[in-house]
């Protein structure tokens, strides 16, 4: 299997006043197509930064990231946006839905940005799959946290991504709702054959993945393959 994401000697340093803070240092790993991959570590270990860099949301200071065959360092902002739009899906801890759009409209935003025709049908289908077929025209404020995250799930899959990044997807949900969302995420992922990268501090969630990357203080502690139960 070929690698969909390849990270080599990645480093990121933030400057605050005269102080420099190295958030990520010499990170290297690879993820194969269709793999489920978890990045775990305590708060401040650099998980979210790593996810952001891998998804092209920010630029690395050192090292190289190859996503879906493209060297992110050689792409400009618009090219990275285009790559995300066509190949990447996202799920955030805070759902990140546009408050002015209905559930259906939120789901089809990536397709609309592509200029795709007839995205509504795909949107309805996906919302049906996540159990929100009857909430198509509700605004985010009219939905519960779990429902909002399910809309975000549907949105993440709307552009048929090759890789999906999920940042603490259950962080703002109660245990039961979180479990249901995770179950849905894995089901959809399996159905679509998407590579899944989850950032979490929840070991239980991470253990649902095939591989776990442990971070501490911006460095890799371990990169282990879990034996399927």
């Amino acid at each position, binding site marked *: 299997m070929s690698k969909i994401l390849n990270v080599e000697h990645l480093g990121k340093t933030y400057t605050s006043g005269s102080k420099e803070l190295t958030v990520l240092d010499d990170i290297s790993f690879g993820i194969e197509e269709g793999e489920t991959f978890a990045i775990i570590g305590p708060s401040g270990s650099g998980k979210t930064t790593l996810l952001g860099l891998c*998804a092209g949301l*920010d630029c690395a200071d050192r090292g190289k990231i190859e996503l879906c065959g493209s060297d992110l360092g050689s792409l400009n902002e618009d090219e990275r*946006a*285009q790559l995300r739009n066509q190949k990447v899906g996202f799920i955030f*801890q805070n759902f990140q839905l546009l408050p*002015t759009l209905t559930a259906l409209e939120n789901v089809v935003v990536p397709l609309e940005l592509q200029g795709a025709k007839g995205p509504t049908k795909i949107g309805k289908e996906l919302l049906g799959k996540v159990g929100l077929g009857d909430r198509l025209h509700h605004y985010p*404020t009219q939905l519960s946290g779990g429902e909002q995250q399910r809309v975000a799930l549907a*949105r993440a899959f709307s552009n048929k991504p090759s890789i999906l990044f999920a940042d*603490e997807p259950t962080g703002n949900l109660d245990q039961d709702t979180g479990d249901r969302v995770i179950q849905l995420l894995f089901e959809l992922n399996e159905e679509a054959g998407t590579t899944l990268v989850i950032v979490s501090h929840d070991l239980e969630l991470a253990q649902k993945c095939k591989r776990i990357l442990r971070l501490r203080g911006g460095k890799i502690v371990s990169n282990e393959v879990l034996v399927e139960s």
Partner: protein
Amino acid sequence: MAWRDSKASGSRLLLFMASIILGIAAVVSIQSFSENLEENIAIQSKALMGADFVIDSNQPPNEKVLAIIDSLGGADGRSVGFPSMAVFPKSGDAKLVGVRGIEGGYPFYGELETLPESAAKAYKKSSGALVDATLMLQYGLKAGDSIKLGNTMFPITGKLISAPGTSGIGASIAPPVLIPYDAVEGTGLIQVGSRVGYDFYFVAEPDQDLVALDEQVDPQLDVENADLDTHISTAEQLGRSYDNFGKFLNLIAFIALLLGCIGVASSVHIYIQEKIRSVAILKCIGATRKQTFFIYLLQITGMGLFGGVLGVLGGLLLQQSFPLLLQGFLPFEVQISFVPNALFSGLVLGVLLSVLFALMPLLNTWFVSPLQVLRIQENGFEKSRKLQFWVVLGILLFIFSFSYWLLGQLLFALYFVLAVLVVFALLWGVATIFMRTIKKYFPNSWGFTSRQSLLNLYRPNNQTTVLILAIGVGTFLISTLYFTKDILLAQVSLEASEDTPNLILMDVQTEEKLAAAQSIEASGLEVLNNIPIITMRMHQIKDRPVRELILDSTATQNRWVLFHEFRVTYRDTLVPSERTVEGSWPIERKENGIIPVSLSDNAAEDAQVKLGDTLVFNVQGVLMTTRVAHLREVDWARMQVNFNILFPSGVLEEAPQFHVLTTKAPDADKSASLQRELVRKFPTVSIIDLRQIFTVIEDILSKIAWVINFMAFFSILTGIIVLIGSVRTSKYQRIKENVLLRTLGAKNKQILRITALEYFYLGLLGGGIGIVLSLLGSLLLAQFVFEVSFVPSAIPFLVVLPSILVLVLLIGMLNSKSVLQSPPLEVLRKEGG
């Protein structure tokens, strides 16, 4: 606590405080300047008149007037003034000027400002002339050149920069030329029909009571068609006219302030929305309702005070610029001084308006439940609505009281509050209806970026209505000023039809009439009118002599008809500017010797006569009994020769008369050459060039419009600040949205387009509604106030609207720059907590 809390987030409110700063600066500067003006008029009143009091008359003083003058110890100086054509032999050009022959030490106060300075005294000794400085510049004249008035050639002794009583609109049409009194007769310019003013100047005794003198002598002079004015009464009159203009400007400034207040209310609303959680936490840990309410009330009061202080400082600076702004209108130099009242009112306005307008959103803190810490309730402020009514009432009462304080008249203040309410409510209403309509009939077929930009107008905590209001009020003010100027100009505009004259020859003596007409025709032009004019006064109205009516303080006739020297003509037809209201014209003359006359409807109303009433006229010593047989409506706005009183033919032909001839010169050159030719042949004839007068009026209106525009500009500036403030308030929301879109794959171009379109909609909506409302308002103004047909200028549509759009786009895009440049990860991290 209030201070600690404001340190963390109060800076966000500062920009909104800036919106009231401008309003306060405008109000304070105008109030201060108005007060300065009033003080200056009082201080300089003697210099403005040049004497303590003056007796003036439009006819040579009769024996009784001379006796009164003698009884006052004789005049210390006198002058005679009249309009006349001046010829400049150097170029051959001719121009209507206001000649004043001066005798004695006049002016006794103030001075004749001349260049060279010595000319102020030298012109009398050398029998020379002091010529208006602007006129000399226009015609390329210098001291030592000559000016011909009537039959006399005068050497120009110097430039006249300023002189008491020679400013204003009259001086723009007929610039002043001063000559020695003795030289007037030699010019031969005072003839039958000449419009001559005779002034007698007096220096009062140090302890003389001028008010008592005015009350005692003026009625005696009134009967003799003369008048006494003291420097006090003249200053009061002058003060009143400037005061009205000042009040008008003050109201415009007040509108800017109100607009700023809406910005304050809106910002406080969002500020409080964001503070709800803090309020709930405070209440959770034991803060009372009062305590939490006062934390924010104190913050707002502090900022209002801060805004007031900055506004007052701005006002003081602005006040310095007013003498420059109003240069064209002021007859004297205004000394700027510190006005404590205005400064105090600026501070009070800052605090009071901030608190009043912030009160409604502030009340929300009162009703925040501590439960909000655990769960944000969307509709948690139902109870506060009960108090909203009282807050709104308080705001309205304050606006009304402040307007009343400014205007001094209850009814005017009420009209102003109503007008402000209507404009604001209409803008608000139309904006709201428009937004609802868009929501209801959302253009789903539009592309994603267009739809998204439209949806942004509905984002949570959106400021759409406030922005539309801010942009709309500014546009409304500017457009209304343009349209009103158009209406005023349309009233005096020259009609372009073939037979509308643009050159009027006044004071043509009977013996010159034929020759003058031949001269016009010889130059290839047509004599359009040849109108005989006879001067007369009213002697008796119905059965009461005018002298008796003058002395009767209960008489209800408008006093001008009692004193006026009417210029009357005779003809049996009506001209296009006249329309029969009652009776018929011409009318058969009755045999009993009573002459039928036609009156303009306004003259009949002022004299309180109706069809069939008797009027006795004194026609240069001969009494003529007439009967009102016809009433006409006269379009006085038409720049042509119109009459209040019209006699039939066959009555006045033998009376001493002069003539008015009119013609139409196709262009300025032809007009100038004809004027030169006519003045050379007929030195005593005055020529009014309507084209020049129109230019003068246009110039004056432009100057007034400029001053008003300057004040309206504060509304625009306030609108801009509200706009910037609002963009900044919703900045984080925008960053969040745009970053999310970028994360989902939106390109910069798409995000830019969404942002630009959002501001385009706002500009178009606000500006469009503002212009349409102003168009409607101006139409009503034209129809009901000015009673003219109104053809709107294209400028608001072609210049104002696009400018507003560009401005709004520019501000929006500049403020969104950082939004576009924010790296997605940074924002998402913040969101993640």
